[in-house]
């Protein structure tokens, strides 16, 4: 049975109609939908086990702590991480990237260089600009090469002994390009730079083996991988995490506090001040369990098939330009396209009238939009519940757009 036929009924929201049509949800790259077991796991937690975690010496507190820490163990296994201390639970990818940019930023000095790429999401640009602004470091970018890849020859030139950080996306949220993370991170390490990977579009889509990626940090969000909003993961290599000072203070991140000083808590709690997203951690566990039951290889195969079909079929529509790597190249579960003579927001509005949800605009990647020479794009993205028929529905609707305005 096809994956979407197995999974579709698990997603209650797919039962609703939009504008009189069956909902065709093609915006999982922005936020996916949740299977019933995730929603139920969170409800059950609120109905049965909720209390604050860690210093609660009562039954509910102990149960909630166990559930919260179980999420960390589940993430550790999901990533193949060496130890649970490397898994910091955050509020999402943006939060994780800000955390690491803050912490590394405090170690930067004037003249140091931060290397990003031209295809980054703003959340892997702005935190580095902020770190650069107060440290005097400089932000540079690996430019786009041919066929929506990164220009690795330029990397050779850009990566120097001044480079302290290389921050890049695993999969572009616009192009779908899968970047050679392990190669770039190995080269970063060779010059003594730390590497930070935005995994927001990859962790929901591909099997991740964190040690083979060669990076020092890897950030992603639960809500793009069938889990709840408000929680994410920052994986950090233990010795690097250990070497960084926390930049956010509060309860839980300390061991002992005096009026004028404090001792930090152990990893990973040192980087988790305040009450964490507890019910969300329960939801994250359920989402990972759901994905692992399917198998991440099957998830990747299904979504890649849909993306490839969409690329081929959309490219055959007169007036449609598909952005990103050629169809035969590996790509993530996103397909961005432009329709001649139509603004991406009008494309999205007209598709919405047909019950089809796509994202449109700059996708928080304005440097990339400038490079592509467009104001924005329309983007279809896929998840386990999407079907080849939905791709066809999208393509037929796009083909009808040229006469719509």
């Amino acid at each position, binding site marked *: 049975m096809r994956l979407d036929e197995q999974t579709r009924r698990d997603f209650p929201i797919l*039962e609703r109609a939009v*504008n*009189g049509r069956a909902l065709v949800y093609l915006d999982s790259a922005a936020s996916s939908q949740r299977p019933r077991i995730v929603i139920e796991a969170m409800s059950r937690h609120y109905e049965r086990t909720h209390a604050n975690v860690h210093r609660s010496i009562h039954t509910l507190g102990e149960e909630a702590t166990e559930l919260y820490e179980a999420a960390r163990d589940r993430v550790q296994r999901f990533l193949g991480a060496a130890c649970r201390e490397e898994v910091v639970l955050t509020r999402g990818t943006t939060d994780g990237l800000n955390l690491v940019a803050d912490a590394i930023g405090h170690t930067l000095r004037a003249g140091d260089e931060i290397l990003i790429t031209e295809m980054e999401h703003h959340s892997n640009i702005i935190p580095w600009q902020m770190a650069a602004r107060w440290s005097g470091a400089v932000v540079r970018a690996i430019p786009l090469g041919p066929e929506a890849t990164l220009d690795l020859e330029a990397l050779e030139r850009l990566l120097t002994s001044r480079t302290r950080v290389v921050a890049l996306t695993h999969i572009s949220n616009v192009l779908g390009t899968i970047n050679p993370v392990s190669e770039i991170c190995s080269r970063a390490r060779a010059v003594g730079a730390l590497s930070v990977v935005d995994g927001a579009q990859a962790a929901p889509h591909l099997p991740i083996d964190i040690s083979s990626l060669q990076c020092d940090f890897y950030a992603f969000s639960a809500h793009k991988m069938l889990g709840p909003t408000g929680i994410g993961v920052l994986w950090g290599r233990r010795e690097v995490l250990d070497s960084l000072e926390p930049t956010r203070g509060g309860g839980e991140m300390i061991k002992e506090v005096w009026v004028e000083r404090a001792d930090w808590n152990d990893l990973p709690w040192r980087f988790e001040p305040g009450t964490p997203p507890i019910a969300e951690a329960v939801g994250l566990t359920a989402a990972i369990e759901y994905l692992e039951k399917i198998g991440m290889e099957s998830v990747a195969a299904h979504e890649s098939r849909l993306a490839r079909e969409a690329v081929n079929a959309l490219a055959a529509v007169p007036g449609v330009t598909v952005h990103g790597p050629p169809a035969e190249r590996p790509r993530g579960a996103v397909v961005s396209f432009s329709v001649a003579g139509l603004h991406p*927001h009008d494309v999205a509005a*007209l598709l919405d009238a047909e019950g089809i949800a796509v994202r449109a605009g*700059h996708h928080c990647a304005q440097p990339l939009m400038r490079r592509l020479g467009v*104001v924005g794009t329309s983007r279809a993205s896929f998840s386990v519940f999407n079907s080849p028929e939905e791709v066809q529905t999208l393509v037929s609707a796009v083909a009808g757009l040229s006469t719509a305005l």
Partner: protein
Amino acid sequence: MTALPRAVGADSSAGSAGAPGPGGGPGGGRRDPLTLYSDVIRQRWRRPRWRGELPDANAVAEDVNPLCGDRVRVMLRLDDGTIRAARFLGDSCAICTAAADVLAERIEGRPSASPAVETLDLLEALGADIRPSRMRCVTLPLSVLHKALGASHAAR
């Protein structure tokens, strides 16, 4: 689309979009593409009559819609307290382009101190079902107009 030079000091105050409504609920009513985009929007999107350069403009402003990156520039020729001519340029969607076109048409001949065109006037002229998520497409040209008039006022 006309490419515009980079905005100088573009700010992001393009009016308030308001919170999106709860949607149609399960099985919500059909949204007809024909009411989504009125004939006025279609015509002004295809052939905007007030789009173009205004070489002798003496009040110019430009701004972006932070939601979508749309950019609109409004150019005015002010003379003796009156808006003698108005033109716009934009990398913008159909709704924004149509709103800018209606706005430019309406303000020509009006006093620069109070051109008296408001969001409601534009919505009425466009005659379409503009949803909260697209409201900024309508208000962006208006806020750029006020920016241009404000700057010219301050210069004097």
